[in-house]
């Protein structure tokens, strides 16, 4: 006798709404004439996100570990992260709305006649909206999934659209497509490790769910080799997604090649989702085996923080600098993971919002700095921009200061929360390394600010385009939140603390 599974639709609704909106987007792409498409897609996407957020807000206090049998656990951390991802997606779509960044026909070979024709026709790419929403649905599922099959599905649902989106850049098509291919290959590679690890853990515990895994560890008697290799391989998949060393290699190339709004969205939202899932797997599934993975993740955190900060110094391309900066930030967030306490979780939740919005804002600014051939990401050509466009340069500086963790910005509060959680858990050496890495990182953040404000403009310097309204809104929102959370962090921090719990 087969009974139909009982699903808690109210709790699943936010994910389902996003999925439905994405499917609606596909239909729009197929049936609505081109002139209307862009606006319609934008409206639908934003509306879908708002409705999903509204539903999420409505169920914010109803946690359940049985939302979809045992596969999904909607709890405080999950709801907060889903909300974070929706907010980041909303701001990201405001940036994506500037169609100038996307190839008119992504399927056309670079330099081919088809591409030239597509360019000439003035067509614009709008598949990017449903693709984004599909990715968002995967991201929302990833941090709430509690068995390895659902985790894997979520991982792929979030990854596949991103691979595509990375190749959509209008300019420097080859670089973009190369980035997409690299991302895809390495992503598939790491997914394989993840799946292999899941299989080993199943072999160890006889269960796919995180709770089953915990029970098996407590029960003992399994084959420890399976457990340990399983943990190592699952970690590879997760560490790849968050861009931790030594699984970070894709980050700079993909960040550089992808269209800048996509880079911003990817950097901000993927990190929130992947760290949410990492946190859940380690806290819920592997807490009992922390003796085995905690030292390893700590080492990776140390290496990642230092590598990101050091490698960024010799970079000349703003998008690569931000990529290495995101690697360093992944290291900081791993510090929160190994804290293994409630304040570590709260810090991670706060940080994902603060860092995500600053990242979106920074990439938003990058989209504005152009010459006749499009975006200019070589920072040597940004010299003296502060004199020509003080407002834009000041905004960029604000985001950089937030990355650097300078007080009165959200980044400072986030870092402080993470380091104090790590200190609380006794990982003082991680705090020391974290502070050192932050100090190194300040160098390249401040160097950019120096170049903006204290250098004279060179001959081949760039100009700032008048930002489209939605880009302006996105940057403005990010800047406001960055300052607001720096001045009054408790607005969000109290919420993060209330939501910092997992339901087994």
């Amino acid at each position, binding site marked *: 006798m087969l009974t139909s599974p009982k699903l808690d639709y109210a709790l699943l609704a936010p994910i389902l709404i996003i999925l439905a909106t994405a499917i609606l987007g596909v239909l729009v792409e197929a049936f609505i004439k081109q002139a209307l498409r862009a606006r319609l897609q934008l409206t639908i996407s934003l509306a879908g996100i708002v409705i999903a957020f509204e539903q999420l807000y409505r169920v914010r206090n109803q946690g359940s570990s049985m939302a979809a049998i045992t596969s999904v656990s909607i709890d405080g951390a999950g709801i907060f992260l889903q909300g974070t991802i929706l907010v980041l997606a909303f701001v990201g779509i405001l940036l994506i709305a500037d169609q100038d960044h996307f190839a008119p026909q992504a399927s056309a070979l670079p330099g081919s006649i088809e591409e030239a024709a597509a360019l000439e026709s003035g067509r614009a790419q709008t598949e990017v909206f449903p693709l984004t929403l599909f990715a968002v649905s995967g991201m929302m599922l990833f941090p709430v999934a509690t068995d390895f099959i659902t985790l894997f599905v979520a991982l792929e649902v979030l990854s596949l659209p991103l691979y595509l989106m990375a190749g959509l850049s209008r300019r420097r098509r080859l670089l973009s497509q190369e980035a997409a291919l690299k991302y895809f*290959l*390495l992503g598939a590679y790491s997914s394989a490790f993840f799946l292999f690890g899941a299989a080993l853990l199943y072999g160890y515990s006889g269960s796919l769910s995180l709770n089953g895994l915990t029970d098996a560890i407590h029960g003992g008697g399994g084959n420890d080799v399976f457990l340990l290799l399983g943990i190592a391989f699952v970690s590879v998949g997760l560490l790849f997604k968050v861009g931790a060393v*030594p*699984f970070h290699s894709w980050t*700079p190339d993909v960040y550089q090649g992808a269209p800048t709004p996509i880079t911003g969205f990817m950097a901000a939202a993927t990190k929130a989702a992947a760290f949410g899932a990492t946190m859940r797997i380690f806290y819920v599934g592997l807490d009992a085996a922390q003796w085995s*993975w905690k030292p*390893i993740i700590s080492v990776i955190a140390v290496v990642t923080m230092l590598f990101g900060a050091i490698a*960024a*110094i010799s970079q000349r391309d703003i998008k690569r600098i931000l990529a290495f900066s995101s690697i360093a930030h992944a290291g900081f967030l791993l510090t929160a993971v190994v804290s293994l306490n409630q304040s570590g979780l709260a810090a991670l939740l706060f940080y994902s919002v603060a860092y995500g919005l600053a990242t979106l804002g920074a990439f938003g600014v990058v989209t504005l700095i152009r010459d006749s051939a499009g975006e200019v990401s070589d920072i040597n050509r940004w010299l003296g921009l502060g004199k020509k466009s003080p407002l834009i340069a000041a905004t960029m500086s604000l985001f950089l200061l937030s990355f650097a963790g300078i007080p009165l910005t959200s980044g400072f509060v986030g870092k402080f929360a993470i380091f104090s959680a790590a200190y609380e858990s006794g990982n003082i050496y991680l705090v020391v390394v974290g502070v050192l890495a932050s100090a190194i990182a300040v160098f390249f953040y401040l160097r950019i600010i120096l170049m903006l404000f204290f250098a004279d403009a060179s001959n081949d310097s760039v100009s700032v385009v008048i930002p489209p309204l939605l880009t302006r809104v996105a940057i403005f929102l990010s800047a406001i939140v960055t300052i607001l959370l720096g001045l009054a962090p408790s607005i969000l921090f109290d919420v993060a603390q209330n939501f910092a719990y997992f339901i087994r």
Partner: protein
Amino acid sequence: MTTSTNLVYLIALPLFSSALLLLLGRIADKWGHIFATLISASVFAVALIEFFAMQGRDGLARPATQKIFEWISVGSLHVDASLLLDQLSICFVLLISGVGTLIHVYSIAYMSHDHDRRRFFAYLNFFIAAMLLLVLGDSYLNLYVGWEGVGLASYLLIGFWNQKPAYATAAKKAFVANRVGDVGLSLAIMIAFTQFGTVTFAGVKEGAHGASAAALTAIGAALLLAAAGKSAQFPLQSWLGDAMAGPTPVSALIHAATMVTAGVYLITRSNFIFDASPTAQLMVVSVGAITLLFGAVIGTAKDDIKKALAASTMSQIGYMILATGLGPVGYAFAIMHLLTHGFFKAGMFLGAGSVMHGMNDEVNMRRYGAIRKVMPITAATFGLGYLAILGVPPFAGFYSKDKIIETAFNAGGAKGILLGGAALLGAAVTAFYMTRVIVLTFTGTKRWDENAKPHESPILMWAPMAVLALGSVTSGFLLSSGGALVNWLQPIVNENHENHAEEFLPPLVVSLMALVVIAIGVALAVFKYRTVPLVAPTNVSVFTKAARNDLYQDSFNEAVFMRPGQKLTSGLVKTDYKVIDGLLRMIGWIIQTSSTAVRSIQSGFVRSYALIMVLGVLALVVMVWLVTL
């Protein structure tokens, strides 16, 4: 103890007026000086009201307090911004506001040609406010605020004509020397707090009873350092001569009558510390005795009338400090000398200013001579001040200075003879150099510059001089008749007649001795300066040269403190640059190099990325294996 609500006006009025004049700027140019003078006069009026109110109360009810607000409340440190007006502070309040007002009036005329007269008056009012806070604070910390305030006012006023680099340097010198003293005051406050847990005068007094001798000596020494800085006592006296760069009214008010006597106030106020520590007292009398001779000797060689008077100030304050070190009997005489000195020295400074005013700002006494004929009023008031400082009865100085000499002799034993002898010798030298000033300036033959057309000063200038001269004549008699001041201050300084030492010599003998040495000093000066060369002779004895050079105090300071200090700082800068910065640059270089090195890992080839991942996986597996060991 009485609670008063008026005390705050003493400080608030001049402070407000000062801020107003500074903020309004040139708008207030027309009436600023009048306004400031009226404010100063009203402060004097409040002080008089408070004085008579205090006289009306008796005994323990005399001191009045007012809590303005709770200032500091951190841990165990609680300090209120409270004012205390007792028998000691009222003397100062009356002196400061009274002489201050006279000098305001005088300055209206004296500064009438100055473009920045309003600013000058704003600073003067600020000084009055700060000085009153200094003497009205009920704790060392409140006093400290005023102490720093007068230091600032002094700096601003010495350098009032800072367009002349020498004057700006003089202001800086005064400031730096004062800072050295201020360190002493802050040390004293800190030691007091650690020892007694409080910084109020009452609290420290209570705590001093049971305190260790070492702590009391340390506090006493620190307080003495502070007093030496502010009151230009040895070894921090070198700034006072240069401070004469300020406008003459400033020299009269700040650098003669009031601010420089703050050290005497500080020691008298802290009598409970010094009375309990004979070592500290010994330091005090030594500093006083040395300075009174030091100043007097310098005074004999100065041709600049203001510098001669400044040396005299230093010397006279030396008398006061000496008196405060003599225990309970000395305090009242120190304060008495302080008050009489306030009258006669301020009067003489104003007289000097009056002469300068008529002589195109000439300060060299060798270019004066026979001025009494053209400036009779100035000469008369100056002359009365002269008689007072000499200690000729019945002028003011006689009552105060003789008492100090007498008390010094009474200190007993070799100490008494030494101190009394020094004080007596000082009196003789004082007679010499003051007579020299009189002879060079007011009598003898004209040695004026061709352009000089000396004339008597306007009434706004001579009226204050006349009032001060009146004080020079009568104040000593009034303060000492029937032991008026001694009795008045008795509750503060704990003087009781039982602890009077054996009299070394009868008072009459001391007075006669003093008069004899004074007469010798006068006669010597008159004889030596029958003729005065226009240019100071150069073939003089080493002693004269030393005196002209302030007994080489500046050279000493420069050789011992300034140059090694400069070497130290330049050495530190070098160390900072080479070692500290070098280390940082090396770290920066290491990071930069390693950054370039890791850059090569980022080859752009997806195959090498995959390889790195494989190596990463291997590393993870190895680490997993390691942790299970």
